């Protein structure tokens, strides 16, 4: 038992170190770019830190951005553990927002009822849209990467139409909906900032998903299906059922992220692209968190700080905020590179040490994806 404990600890320990190393490496690269653009290291670094944490307004901005990042990351983790990962989060975010706009604008009830309804609408919208991909996979064997890629593109068109035609605010030529009523929106946590009460979703969702995956029957089944469809089927579990449920849950989480982007955003009107990009950066967050629901929170904080700091840095020292996008992509690449490097090193070590040591260096699921 001591061996497994030691193995478990070293696993988590290495994971954590790896994430920290990748984050630092990526930040250093960022600073390299900053310096190459003529801004001194200290000025760039302080502008960035200031932008992310330097004032109430900035901290609020950072925390606010954590919400969609965490939710999407959790969505990714759920489907990843079930072996059914997809890239449909941008589309599910958008459709979640679409459903939110319906409930927000078409019903008039006090906030105590309205806001929960709005959140449910977001989750339902995201889950339904993910359901299309889930159905296509379960019933027609369609690779869900391809289907969700396509569905993302379709969702973008649907939203473009939605805010220009049926739900267009006729008083403006801009593609926006009318202002969503206050009863449908999250109240501000700190007034006159971007931070709303939806921040509570972060710890709640992270703990809920962590609990779901580790301690419930659904979580166990998902992880079993993710480990190998053959094994799961042998145990009497239907991979299609469990996999589909995981996809629906991830869609619900993305839809919830969409709802936050719409009703906890800086403007009360909904546009055609209120943050679908979080659907991809959320994946980066999950990767940095090594697919652990609880680690997703600090990882989301880092990414949120990057976004917030980068945005402000653009104004103060003139470094384009697109650098942040580059760094986020770089982090994914570095995490993958580092993980596989580590895996190969462990594997060589295992081969050298012989059969007894095999249990301590079990391969990570994401490096050798199960046949889809």
């Amino acid at each position, binding site marked *: 038992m001591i061996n497994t404990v030691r193995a478990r600890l070293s696993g988590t320990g290495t994971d954590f170190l790896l994430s920290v190393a990748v984050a630092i490496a990526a930040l250093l690269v960022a600073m390299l*770019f900053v310096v190459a653009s003529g801004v001194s290291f200290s000025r760039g670094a302080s502008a960035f830190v200031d932008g992310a944490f330097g004032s109430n307004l900035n901290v609020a901005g950072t925390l606010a951005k954590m919400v969609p990042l965490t939710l999407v990351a959790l969505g990714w983790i759920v489907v990843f553990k079930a072996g059914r990962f997809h890239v449909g989060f941008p589309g599910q975010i958008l459709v979640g927002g679409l459903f939110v706009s319906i409930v927000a604008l078409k019903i008039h009830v006090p906030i105590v009822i309205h806001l929960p309804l709005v959140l449910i609408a977001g989750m339902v919208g995201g889950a339904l849209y993910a359901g299309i991909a889930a159905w296509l996979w379960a019933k*027609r064997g369609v690779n869900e990467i*391809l*289907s969700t890629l396509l569905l993302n593109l379709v969702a973008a068109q649907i939203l473009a139409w939605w805010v220009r035609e049926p739900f267009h605010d006729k008083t403006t030529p801009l593609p926006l909906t009318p202002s969503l009523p206050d009863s449908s929106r999250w109240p501000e946590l700190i007034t006159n900032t971007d931070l709303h009460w939806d921040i509570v979703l972060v710890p709640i969702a992270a703990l809920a998903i962590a609990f779901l995956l580790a301690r419930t029957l659904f979580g166990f089944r998902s992880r079993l299906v993710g480990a190998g469809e053959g094994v799961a089927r042998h145990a009497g579990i239907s991979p299609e059922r469990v996999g589909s449920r995981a996809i629906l849950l991830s869609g619900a989480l993305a839809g919830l992220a969409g709802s936050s982007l719409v009703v906890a955003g800086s403007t009360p009107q909904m546009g055609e692209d209120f943050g679908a990009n979080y659907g991809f950066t959320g*994946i980066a967050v999950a990767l940095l968190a090594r697919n652990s629901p609880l680690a997703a929170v600090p990882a989301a904080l880092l990414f949120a700080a990057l976004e917030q700091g980068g945005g402000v840095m653009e104004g103060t020292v003139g470094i384009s905020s*697109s650098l942040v996008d580059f760094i986020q992509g770089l982090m994914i690449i570095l995490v993958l590179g580092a993980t596989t490097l580590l895996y190969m090193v462990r594997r060589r070590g295992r081969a050298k040490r012989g059969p007894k040591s095999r249990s301590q260096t079990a391969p990570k699921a994401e490096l*050798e994806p199960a046949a889809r």
Partner: protein
Amino acid sequence: MSAIATVGIGPFDTAWLAAALVLTTPILLAAVGELISERVGVLNVGLEGYMLAGAFFSYYVTWKADSLFLGVLASVAAGLLFAAIMALLTVEAKADQIVTGVGINLAAIGLTSYLFDQIFGNKAQIVVPTVGSLSIPGLSSIPGGFGSALFNHDWILYLAFVSVFVVWFLLYRTKWGLAVRAAGELPAAVDTAGISVKRVRWMGVLAAGGMSGLGGANLAIVQVGIFHQEMTAGRGFLALVAVIFGRWRPLGVLGACFALGGADALQLRLADESQVPSQVWAVLAGIAAAIAIYQVTRWRQGRPRPVAIALSGAVALCGVVLAAASPHIDLPDQLWRSLPYLLALVVLAGAITRAHMPTKLTLPYSRGEG
């Protein structure tokens, strides 16, 4: 378009044809490269990133070095570079292809936007000279506008269309092509034959990168002479769609890309009109009818597909009715733009398509694991 008399059916005239070919080219270039890559088993979600890198660097190098030729070279190099990162991670290190692709996309979009902002942000829009037309003598004077529509384009466009046939030949008539096709279906066989699966896969990924980079160059320094952020606007994903649509075959991919380009050209044409012209319905009806007839002939061969027949027949019927009635409907642009994606989903859901999909697509190869 110049004042050349054009021949055609309604909006489908030679001017439309010329526009369709131009719009098809970048997607076609990327799709042909991706075709090779997917046949060897690698799915490049980062295709959009390769294209964007190609577009930016072609623009930048053309401006900096004052040379279109170097600009084109740079675009290919940029695409190759990002593809090399992809290959390093997915073929060598066996990391997951999808996640890597997402990362590369993010990185490429971020990098090109950042570099553009930093280098060009404070200047007025710089327009670089564009690659000129290469008019094929004789052929380009075919009357009715056909000559100028087909034979008065830049060399990259000709290259794109020629490459389809080159790839067809390479895939189906050479040993290399056999290895490529096998690498995505039964890599163990390739390995046993003494050919390095990794090397074949590297080539596939690099092909996707290089050709997409060229596609990006086509966008930037052929069509407009400028770059703006995210100017590929999803064309990389459309190329992925085209490969699926084309059932992983060169001619199919050509058809799919042309359908996309043609629809795009049509949509531009119809943007000003208040209703969908009846000729569009007629053409749609014609295509659906052709599909229906084709499915019926398969039925007589003993391979019935009733759903396909019913669907295409219904569409054909609707098309005929709409063409005749010519009602005043104006379908939203977004619906037309979603059509390729929706059709691709339908095609994906069909069993025949999945029969053609390379079996080992997205799966890494380890010796001993087949």
